[in-house]
């Protein structure tokens, strides 16, 4: 069965580029903004009218015995059904705009939601931390197991949109990050990320070219490791005109390392007893993809209060990760692509295809969902600044911020499950040892440098993010 009902060919303007309107209603980033900000505005409106979105933003609570867990879900069945309907309508409208069939989405999303609920409930077991049953890791493992054994039908791809869910979740996360925090920690994140990104790109690029790989391939691998994983790799591949097979190899290597570090980074940070904010900064510096890094950061946040010796709040890990990865690394992809396009055009060997680098690509490739994250932060900061701290703790936090963060956790669990369900190791393209060696050299530098900067040089910032 065809995965998509139709191909939405962007309408083009006079310059031959997709029209601005088409961008606003047809690109994943903007759709995530409309959904995320729509939820934030609806939540604000409800609070202003003396109500709250709390009833809808239902989440499992801690439980000790299985009958207790079953009773909990049964008692809140109507709320879970309403929450499913809300997500099905909002996300369904989004994937419809991307060109998928709504029916395919609803059917497969029902499965995604049901499994996510089970995983969320499992994560609330009071013994979950003891057995390492953190929802992100379990979701990933379950997904990997299913997709690499029995497989998933092609039409279910409509509901396995990892990046879409992550972007919606990051916009919602903005409602829980005060603007002052972004202004305070943002520049540190940018500085730390810039140091590590430049070093990682340099190591991968130089190693790859020394090993005899094509420069365009080396640059694609380099930005995949240094900036934003798969997104970085395809942005650079397009800008420099990399070969299709080499782009596939770069994507495959990024995925292998990104999935490995989802497990590796929380394990290392836990063995070192890092505070949640510090570990989040390290993960943000050293993970390769937003979804993978959020899985690692949320896992580590879950250790707070459950694993002895780990200080900080659960949210600090995700907040530090987002500041580092999204603000520090992702937003610069357009500049990386533009600069590399100039270098490829003027300095590298010809390919028979010419490109005129265009500064407009810096904006066109900008990950717009970041604007939604910032807008959500501004909105909630404005609401909070209108009253006293006591009012914030009594009204804004429990009625507005907390429910929105519950919705964010749901969006992330959908994403973590979808990572596993869309990662089929036999589909990954093998490109020989040389690209893997080059990328791995960058991974090692990235991990060590990220650790030193997070735990030694800027540790004061990231520790204070926690309490």
């Amino acid at each position: 069965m065809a995965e998509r009902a139709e191909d939405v060919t962007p309408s083009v303007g006079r310059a031959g580029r997709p029209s601005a309107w088409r961008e606003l209603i047809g690109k994943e980033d903007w759709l995530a903004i409309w959904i995320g900000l729509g939820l934030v505005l609806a939540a604000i409106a409800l609070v202003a009218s003396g109500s709250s979105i709390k009833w809808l933003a239902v989440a499992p609570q801690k439980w000790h015995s299985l009958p207790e867990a079953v009773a909990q879900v049964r008692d809140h069945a109507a709320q879970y059904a309403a929450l499913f309907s809300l997500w099905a309508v909002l996300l369904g409208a989004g994937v419809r705009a991307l060109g998928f069939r709504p029916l395919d989405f609803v059917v497969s999303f029902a499965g995604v939601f049901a499994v996510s609920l089970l995983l969320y409930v499992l994560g609330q077991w009071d013994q979950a931390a003891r057995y390492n049953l953190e929802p992100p890791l379990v979701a990933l493992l379950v997904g990997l197991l299913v997709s690499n054994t029995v497989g998933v039908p092609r039409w279910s791809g409509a509901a396995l949109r990892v990046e879409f869910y992550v972007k919606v979740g990051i916009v919602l996360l903005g409602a829980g990050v005060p603007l002052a925090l972004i202004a305070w920690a943002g520049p540190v994140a940018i500085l730390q990320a810039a140091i590590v990104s430049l070093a990682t790109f340099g190591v991968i690029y130089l190693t790859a070219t020394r090993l005899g790989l094509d420069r365009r391939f080396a640059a694609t691998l380099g930005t995949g490791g240094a900036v934003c994983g798969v997104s970085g790799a395809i942005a650079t591949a397009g800008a420099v005109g990399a070969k299709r097979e080499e782009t596939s190899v770069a994507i495959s290597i990024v995925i292998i390392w990104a999935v490995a570090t989802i497990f590796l980074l929380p394990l290392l940070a836990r063995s070192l007893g890092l505070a949640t904010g510090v570990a989040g900064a390290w993960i943000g510096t050293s993970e390769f993809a937003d979804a993978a890094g959020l899985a690692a950061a949320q896992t580590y946040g879950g250790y707070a209060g459950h694993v002895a010796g780990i200080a900080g709040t659960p949210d600090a890990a995700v907040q530090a990760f987002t500041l580092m990865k999204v603000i520090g690394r992702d937003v610069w992809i357009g500049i990386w692509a533009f600069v590399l396009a100039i270098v490829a055009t003027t300095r590298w060997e010809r390919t028979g295809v010419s490109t005129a680098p265009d500064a407009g690509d810096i904006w066109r490739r900008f990950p717009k969902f970041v604007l939604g994250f910032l807008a959500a932060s501004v909105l909630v900061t404005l609401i909070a600044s209108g009253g006293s701290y006591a009012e914030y703790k009594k009204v804004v936090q429990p009625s507005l911020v907390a429910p929105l963060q519950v919705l964010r956790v749901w969006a992330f669990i959908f994403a973590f499950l979808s990572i596993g369900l869309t990662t089929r190791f036999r589909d990954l393209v093998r490109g020989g040892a040389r690209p893997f060696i080059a990328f791995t050299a960058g991974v090692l530098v990235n991990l060590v440098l990220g650790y030193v900067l997070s735990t030694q040089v800027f540790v004061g910032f990231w520790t204070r993010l926690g309490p």
Partner: protein
Amino acid sequence: MTAIDLRRHPALPARAPAAGACRSCRHFASAAAEIEANLPGLRALGSVYGSVRGADGLCRLHGRYLAAASSCAAHTVAGADRLRTPLDRLVMDR
């Protein structure tokens, strides 16, 4: 937005292709589903529906992943085949 015209750069061929951009070429595949199908693993931790892709696509002729503004001497307007008569095709393809 300012476009940096590098067609006159000394590193480039003296006779830069005058053809149209890839976005209008029959060899250029920019549909998201086709790109996803040709780049395995992409949707696991990335997306062709996001802003970072811009309007990039795959060139079936050169086997490269390219920006839509790229161009080459083999540019063929999409649908050009349909505009030609059988006699045109016979003459031109020879």
